[in-house]
């Protein structure tokens, strides 16, 4: 993923101002801020509260309720690995175990500058699992080798093609 710009209060105010007229603007604003800066900086909380006439506690409450909103930047490669029932039926837990045993990567806690692996529950690709969303690209029919490759920064598109040819 391309690196994101550093926090800039002026830019944040601009984003918030551009969306604050929406009905129920909080989530659209939080998504827009995260798209821009890569995470929701705590410094945005009072700005949102002021713009939407909410308390800071209400805004903080909303930010922390949702799994999506990050309080620090994600890795350059973000893998959202599905671990819900349909992918379990196709061995996603085996992929998680192998990732830990062979590469020392713990899907639940791997989150550094290079690589973030997040557990998600269902990507809607239940007939072609195991699946992952890799930097926003959906990859189906994952196996341990291709998942390891993706963790090393391999192209998501290539991983898709191997799946198609399998």
């Amino acid at each position, binding site marked *: 993923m391309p690196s994101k710009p550093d926090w800039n209060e002026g830019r944040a105010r601009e984003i918030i101002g551009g969306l604050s007229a*929406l*009905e*129920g*603007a*909080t*989530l*659209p604003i*939080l*998504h827009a801020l995260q798209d821009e800066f890569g995470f929701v900086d705590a410094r945005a909380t009072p700005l949102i509260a002021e713009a*939407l006439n*909410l308390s800071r506690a*209400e805004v903080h*409450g*909303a930010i922390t*309720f*949702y*799994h*999506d*909103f990050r309080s620090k930047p994600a890795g350059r490669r973000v893998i*959202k690995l599905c671990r*819900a*029932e*349909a*992918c*379990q*039926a*196709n061995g996603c837990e085996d992929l998680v175990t192998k990732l830990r045993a062979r590469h020392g990567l713990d899907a639940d806690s791997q989150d550094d500058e290079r690589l973030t692996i997040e557990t*998600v*529950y*269902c*990507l*809607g*690709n*239940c*007939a*072609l*699992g195991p*699946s992952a*969303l890799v930097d*926003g*690209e*959906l*990859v*189906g*029919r994952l196996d341990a080798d291709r998942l390891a490759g993706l963790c090393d920064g391999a192209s998501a*598109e290539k991983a*898709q*093609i191997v*799946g*198609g*040819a399998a």
Partner: protein
Amino acid sequence: MSPVRIFIPGDAAALSVGADAVARAIRAEASRRGASVDIVRTGSRGMLWLEPLVEVEAAQGRIAYGPVSPHDVASLFDAGFLSGGAHPLAQGAVADLDWMRRQTRVTFARVGVIDPLSLDDYRAHGGLKGLERALAASGADIVEAVRASGLRGRGGAGFPTGIKWKTVLDAEALQKYVVCNADEGDSGTFADRMLMEGDPFLVIEGMAIAGLAVGATKGFVYIRSEYPHAFRAMCAAIDIARKAGVLGASVLGSGRAFDMEARLGAGAYICGEETSLLESLEGKRGVVRAKPPLPALQGLFGKPTIVNNVLSLAAVPSILAEGPQAYADYGVGRSRGTLPFQLGGNVKRGGLVELAFGATLRDLIDGFGGGTRSGRPVRAVQVGGPLGAYLPASQLDTPLDYEAFAAIGAMLGHGGIVVFDDSVDMAQQARFAFKFCAKESCGKCTPCRIGAVRGVETVDRIVAGVEREKNLGVLDDLNQLMTDGSLCAMGGLTPMPVMSALRHFPEDFRRASQRAAAE
């Protein structure tokens, strides 16, 4: 010579196995050979094991080839696939394929057929007829048509849609809303996603009709963030519909207003629960509301609101266009119409199967699905998402209708069917049901928030053989409490997968004592 039309899905599932690369390879190969082609990106037909599925418009119909990899493209051209030529990947004309012919495609009639973002295609294939009818009818007449069709909420609860609409119609308010629940979080379900990506105008048309029916001028479709492709498709379609006058201050020139926005969720399963979804749309934590008041009377921003699943709203245009009786003629008992079933997990031929109610699970899993992908025997099937029951192979002859499933302590839910082979450990699946509930609970009510955590611990003790009988008693008690005392279906239905696993697969909860006895 006019270019040959080639159809390649742009659906996320097809993309996940390389549809973009295939489209690019075909374009490049065509230009290398000087062949004139027109590549149309469509939704997916739902034969997901054949993705990427490429269709060519030939004299004998649309001929399908799949699963195609970029490496196959040169040989497809060599085999004359542009005129439907024979090739090892050739599947025949799509319309003649058994898998398609045995379905009743009402809601999914256009998905995989048309360019999802072409309003002309949509109209040419019967789109907007329902909306035109609705504009000529009174709100009460539209609501009556929906009631007469027998349509029940496709999100899982199965509440009669017409009754919900009648409540909103009769409510007095200056502002009313239509909210489309596209927070399709249940594992094993992907019909909403496929429909939004493959025929987004149908969702828009259904919402506009709902707005006209009850006097709501504003709609929201709330889409989960795990579906970025569907969100982009809906946003683009809304934009096109607005520019074409389908949405806006004067719907199709009628002088009556309806407009809508797509909103993105943020990774919370609970927001698929209607009141939690409304809180989220208002910009708050997705915490469940107590009912009453019903959302139909005090919904979004406290105003009367229709909250319906994507598939419920998408069924409405054809009910208006073809008449309610045509829809009600499908189905059995009190389950009228069709349900797009989603076949996933460990299954050979997974995908989207739209059927009238009344077929059996066995027909779906064996007939359509062809058994497991692993080739091992089917051991358990979870129907209706993470809150649905696990059924053993002996219950596969249960008819797919709401009442028949309720009678065996299960539910159809949103029509998701997840197949497991005999390598599954059902005690672990029961544990996962609690773990998932603990992670995704909104935390408002105690039975769900605390019960789920206690559930994980109790299953662990049972599996470890610690005071087994006593802990089975605790589990039973806990399940009863969660069922009776939870505020919404999250805590209330988590016991369903747990108890069904325990009832049908007790041996998996006994492993520790068996090991001990063996030693």
